[in-house]
């Protein structure tokens, strides 16, 4: 530890950061704008001035910018120094010269870094008497609202958008006091990470357009720590609601997972919670072909319980978008033998393969932070930008590791962002993108290879063989691919902390095997190797731990056992398997019960629908792609109509089996699960239990500035109603309690004394120890060597191998119920090789029909040379392409052609 003297008092600190970061970490407040913990220092705003003294005899000192000065042992500084203080206040005065002072009508108001910093510097009276410069705003699309007059030109937006996230369509224009941050013209921001501008911007230039639409003052929100449901990465979020309407999602800092950022699907996909297709009360049909009609809660429970007294079995179908607790409860209800997962046979084999690969790999399982720090990355088969967007952001950061090392060699501090970017001109870390489809990471990749999944898999096997001679070699590889594999193997072997990235997106188990094989072979020569794989849904990993089988097996069981009923938990079977299988599963059993929050095609087929709570109304646990147990908490208090899935099941269980364990609270289920399912040991460590108190208090979901507690319902009564109780968590639906908890899993809002904006994140401590699913004992890489490389891709005469094409906006189920996300989704695309397109007389934008023996779907043609001849790529997750299990050999023809 080193010592830093701040205003003549010694403080211990760890060297390696700049003065600003160090002082903030020590609990001091130094106003700042351009510095951001993830974007580091550039010295633009000149707000963080402090006085630096040569030694204890120096009484004059010099003003330095604390963000641009390294904190070193025995350094003496003053934050309170009169001259430094005056300078900081005057810098705010300069910034305020053009700032419109429209706080009362500004969306940022109350959670504004500029407001906080202005108060902090003590700048009070306006001395600038001249006209303010004004700008025109732009329409930046459905997510981000633009209000340029408020800009204080801290340059954070372009630094995040361009330098950090690789975006190209946001720039700074103009000079002197008229710099403009925007696009060259109005238009939708092209980056998948544009929503982060809302948090990165220290004032109200970039604000959340969806939040604006159901505006409330930010201090009136009731918020809870949450976990994103829109992909498998499990980014930590904060969900904010008022009067039962979910109004926004913010990032919740997690050092290992999402850091400071979210993708736009995660940030703006939340509105399915408020959607018109929500089920808010139990619904039942009087007969199979009747309409669903509201039903009393207790009658609904009774009706389900009766199904269990028939003596015939009940089939349970869990899903990767329901919490671990709900899935576990369903498994307990129907019994492990009759518990299935809403995945097709292929999907299920891939999910299982990924979970096994991650648990058995000798390499370490990579968090997003590990990927971001990797010295070399191999992306095998996965278009991460569209399937697990934040993983793409992490991979993009990994491309800089070589530049960081180089800068270190030149004596440049690791936080000196601009300097590192200058020195990194000619230095790039190795990034291999080997995927079936074009990806947005291609622009930073050192090697790009696009081919059908089997050829991607073969490249993987070849790399593994080049790393470890005992790994199987694919046969008949071309010399070019062999040389490429050797080069990639060499780069990975030599790199510090190399990462292998893959996932379920290519729809190929063979690609997953290949990636696992590379990680295992790489580990033999480089023990720092790590493996990261994405799955299809937010709790796919967790659901797999409960050991259910796939939907084909479910149908077999239903037929074989003459099932009385099927209970489907938070899944639309039609999205996940052949419509024939889904249809059979929903018609063969005498009764169909669906527990879901949204009226899906499956729910519409049900005899009884029990309305489930979404992530915003329930607490529970997801296991992310890394095997990390993560707890999410309800932001919206329990309401009369609907309940978390596990609560419905607990109530059914209490009627069906009086001997069953009584689950009163979430903790009861969590504890029960921990004792019954060995693989779920560790779930309790995901977050403190409901009995946790910080200094005898619960954690407040509302800010102490929350207003209108009685006014909200004043039209009916002015009496103060009691706060809803929350037996499931250590959080309270109240402004009373701890405002800034120390426990990261309980952070409901960023706040510190004097810091009301999200920038208070710099006052928070790091993550708790990870609660990870354990590896599988005794497993080793040898098993992977049982896998064989597939044969090379060969085209068919009249069919095309149609590969999955993922879209960040459009392929995921729930976010598509959010109007802002849906507005960016295009109709289903089929991408063809130019020669194939010519052969089929298909031109760009032509209507195309893709079909197999049973299905036919309409889509729009696109033509690109990255598609291998004989293959094509088709949008997945769209209504048009539902029921296809890509990759699949399909017929393609121009619509209307014979």
């Amino acid at each position, binding site marked *: 530890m080193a010592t830093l003297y701040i205003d003549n008092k010694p403080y211990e600190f760890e060297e390696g950061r700049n003065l600003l970061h160090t002082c903030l970490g020590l609990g001091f407040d130094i106003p700042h704008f351009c510095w951001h913990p993830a974007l580091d220092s*550039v010295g633009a705003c*000149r707000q963080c001035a402090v006085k630096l003294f040569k030694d204890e005899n120096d009484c004059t000192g010099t003003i330095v910018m604390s963000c641009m000065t390294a904190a070193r042992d025995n350094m003496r500084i003053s934050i309170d120094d009169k001259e430094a203080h005056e300078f900081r206040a005057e*810098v705010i005065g*300069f910034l305020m*010269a053009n700032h419109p002072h429209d706080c009362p009508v500004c969306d940022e108001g109350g959670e504004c870094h500029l407001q906080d910093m202005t108060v902090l510097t003590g700048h009070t009276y306006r001395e600038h008497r001249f006209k303010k410069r004004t700008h025109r705003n732009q329409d930046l699309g459905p997510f981000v609202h633009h209000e340029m007059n408020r800009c204080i030109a801290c340059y954070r937006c372009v630094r995040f958008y361009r330098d950090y996230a690789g975006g190209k369509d946001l720039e700074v224009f103009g*000079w002197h*006091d008229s710099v403009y941050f925007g696009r060259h013209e109005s238009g939708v921001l092209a980056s998948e990470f544009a929503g982060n501008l809302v948090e990165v911007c220290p004032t109200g230039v970039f604000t959340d357009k969806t939040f604006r639409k159901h505006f409330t003052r930010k201090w009136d929100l009731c918020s809870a720590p949450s976990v994103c449901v829109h992909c498998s990465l499990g980014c930590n979020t904060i969900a904010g609601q008022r009067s039962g309407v979910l109004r926004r999602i913010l990032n919740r800092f997690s050092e290992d997972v999402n850091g400071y950022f979210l993708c736009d699907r995660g940030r703006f996909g939340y509105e399915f919670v408020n959607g018109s297709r929500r089920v808010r009360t139990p619904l039942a049909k009087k007969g199979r072909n009747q309409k669903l009609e509201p039903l009393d809660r207790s009658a609904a429970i009774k009706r389900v319980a009766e199904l269990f007294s028939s003596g015939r079995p009940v089939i349970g179908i869990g899903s990767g978008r329901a919490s671990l607790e709900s899935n576990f409860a369903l498994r307990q209800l129907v019994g492990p033998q009759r518990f299935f997962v809403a995945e097709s046979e292929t999907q299920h084999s891939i999910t299982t393969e990924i979970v096994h690969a991650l648990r058995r790999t000798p390499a370490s399982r990579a968090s997003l932070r590990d990927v971001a720090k990797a010295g070399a990355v191999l992306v095998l088969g996965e278009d991460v930008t569209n399937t697990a967007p934040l993983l793409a952001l992490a991979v993009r950061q990994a491309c800089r590791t070589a530049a960081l090392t180089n800068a270190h060699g030149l004596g440049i501090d690791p936080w000196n962002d601009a*300097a590192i970017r200058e*020195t990194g*001109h000619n230095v790039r870390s190795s990034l291999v993108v080997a995927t079936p489809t074009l990806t947005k990471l291609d622009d930073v990749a050192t090697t790009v290879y696009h081919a059908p999944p089997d050829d991607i898999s073969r490249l993987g096997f070849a790399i593994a063989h080049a790393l470890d001679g005992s790994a199987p070699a694919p046969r008949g590889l071309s010399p070019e691919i062999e040389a490429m594999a050797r080069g990639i193997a060499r780069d990975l072997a030599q790199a510090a902390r190399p990462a292998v990235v893959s996932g379920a997106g290519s729809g190929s188990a063979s690609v997953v095997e290949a990636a696992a094989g590379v990680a295992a072979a790489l580990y033999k020569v480089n023990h720092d190797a790590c493996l990261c794989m994405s799955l299809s849904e937010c709790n796919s990993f967790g659901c797999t731990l409960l050991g259910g089988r796939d939907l084909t097996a479910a149908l077999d069981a239903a037929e074989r056992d003459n099932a009385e009923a099927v209970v489907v938990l938070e899944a639309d079977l039609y999205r996940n398997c052949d419509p024939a299988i889904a249809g059979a599963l929903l018609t063969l059993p005498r009764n169909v019960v669906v527990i879901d929050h949204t009226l899906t095609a499956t729910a519409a087929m049900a005899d009884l629908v029990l309305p489930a709570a979404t992530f915003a109304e329930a607490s529970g646990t997801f296991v992310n792609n890394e095997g990390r147990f993560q707890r999410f908490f309800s932001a919206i208090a329990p309401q009369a109509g609907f309940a978390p899935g596990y609560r419905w099941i607990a109530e059914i269980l209490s009627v069906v089996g009086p001997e069953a364990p009584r689950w009163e609270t979430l903790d009861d289920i969590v504890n029960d699960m921990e004792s019954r399912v060995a693989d779920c040991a560790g779930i309790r460590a995901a977050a403190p239990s409901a009995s946790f108190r910080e200094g005898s208090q619960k954690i407040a979901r509302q800010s102490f500035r929350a207003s209108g507690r009685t006014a909200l319902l004043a039209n009916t009564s002015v009496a103060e109603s009691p706060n809803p109780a929350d037996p499931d968590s250590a959080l309270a639906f109240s402004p009373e309690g701890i405002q800034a908890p120390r426990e990261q899993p309980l952070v409901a809002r960023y706040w510190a004394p004097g810091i009301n904006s999200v920038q208070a994140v710099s006052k928070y401590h790091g993550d708790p120890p990870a609660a990870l699913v354990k590896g599988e004992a005794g497993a080793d890489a040898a098993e992977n060597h049982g896998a064989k490389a597939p044969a090379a891709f060969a085209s068919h005469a009249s069919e095309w191998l149609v590969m999955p094409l993922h879209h960040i906006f459009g392929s995921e189920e729930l976010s598509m119920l959010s109007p802002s996300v849906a507005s960016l989704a295009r109709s289903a695309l089929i991408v063809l090789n130019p020669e194939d397109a010519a052969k089929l007389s298909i031109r760009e934008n032509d209507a195309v029909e893709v079909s197999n023996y049973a299905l036919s779907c309409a889509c729009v043609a696109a033509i690109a040379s990255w598609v291998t001849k004989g293959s094509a790529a088709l949008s997945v997750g769209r209504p048009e392409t539902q029921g296809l299990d890509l990759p699949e050999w399909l017929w393609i023809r121009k619509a209307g052609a014979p």
Partner: protein
Amino acid sequence: MIDSPLTHAMKPTKEALAIDEYEDAGGYAALRTAVTEMTPFDVTAAVTDSNLRGRGGAGFPTGKKWSFVPPPGKRTGAAYLVVNADEMEPGTFKDRLLLEQNPHLVLEGALAAAFAIQAQTVYVFVRWAYAKAAQRLTKAIIEAQRRGYIGDNVLGSKFCVRVHVHTSHGRYLCGEETGLLNALEGKRASPRSKPPFPQVVGLLGRPTVVNNVETLCNIPPILRNGAAWFKALSKTGDSGTKLYGASGRVNAPGLWELPMGTTPREIIEKHAGGMKSGYNLRGFLPGGASTDFLTDRHLDVPMDFDAMQKAGSRLGTGTMIVLDDRTCPVAMVHNLVTFFARESCGWCTPCRDGLPWTQNILADIEQGRGRPEDLDRLELHCKLLGPGRTFCALAPGAVEPLQSALKYFREDFERHITEKRCPYKH
């Protein structure tokens, strides 16, 4: 021996010296000696010995600057020499004279410098307004290529070099060496943070030396005549000659190559022909718009780097702007600050937002709308925009004339405010 090595060969017609004329005057002999008889280290040593200091305004020792470039064994890839011909300091037109009338001297200096740092590429960054200079330089490059001074194996040596002229869209900040490099890379001409210094990480991440035109013009004479000769040219400790200029209400505004350390009195009275009749000297900015005012008390201070610093100003570019007693100092400072406010790159707060504010106050004062507290605000701004407070030297330079005007011409400011009008306007 020649006592005006930069200008002695120039033609009275103001035409550029053609390559034959330049060679006849001893041109390219220094380059020949350098590449055929000297090592790059020898060239750097000769320049270091001469004590040549950068003529762009900062006065950094040239040899020392070159010595920071890692030698080829310790670097990978290319190194660059960049000629800073982006002369845009108000009142300064010295580099233009050299570029237009003796382009081969600029070239020879640049080539010798490239040899010294073992750069294979030279970029000449010319301000867009210097179209004639760019044209003449381009012609000179073609001539020099034909004679084998540029290209592969220059004069039979192993030295290979290419020269490119880059005409910029122009901004004051392109004259700042790192801003220039950004502009050359096609980026905004905002300055870069240092370290890394360009000598280590410069253009496109490669070692780069950026030298001013006049600085480079001194290299061939130094190599030809030696360090002792160069030092003897000067009247003071800073060696060589200097292109001094004078503008304002003097009888013969112009530019003269004189011994370093010539006094303002000699420049104004002898070379510029004294003040115009009816006008008296009130003060002068010794080295361009971003230097502090000096007054008649300083007329005998030698114009070199150290003495000017001691007198409370800077040598800057050495081209003085003279303020007479019938010109309003407030209007003059307003004019200058307007320029700097416009040329701010918008990167750092005090410069971006402080200069326009300063400009507005000065406009108010000049137009009779000033308030007594404005002078305190102006003085505060001089402090807030001072060295160390801003990202680069633009704003500190911009407030230099203001802070000294407030010191020397305070009564003028006060009269504007009390009389609510400009007393110089009738």
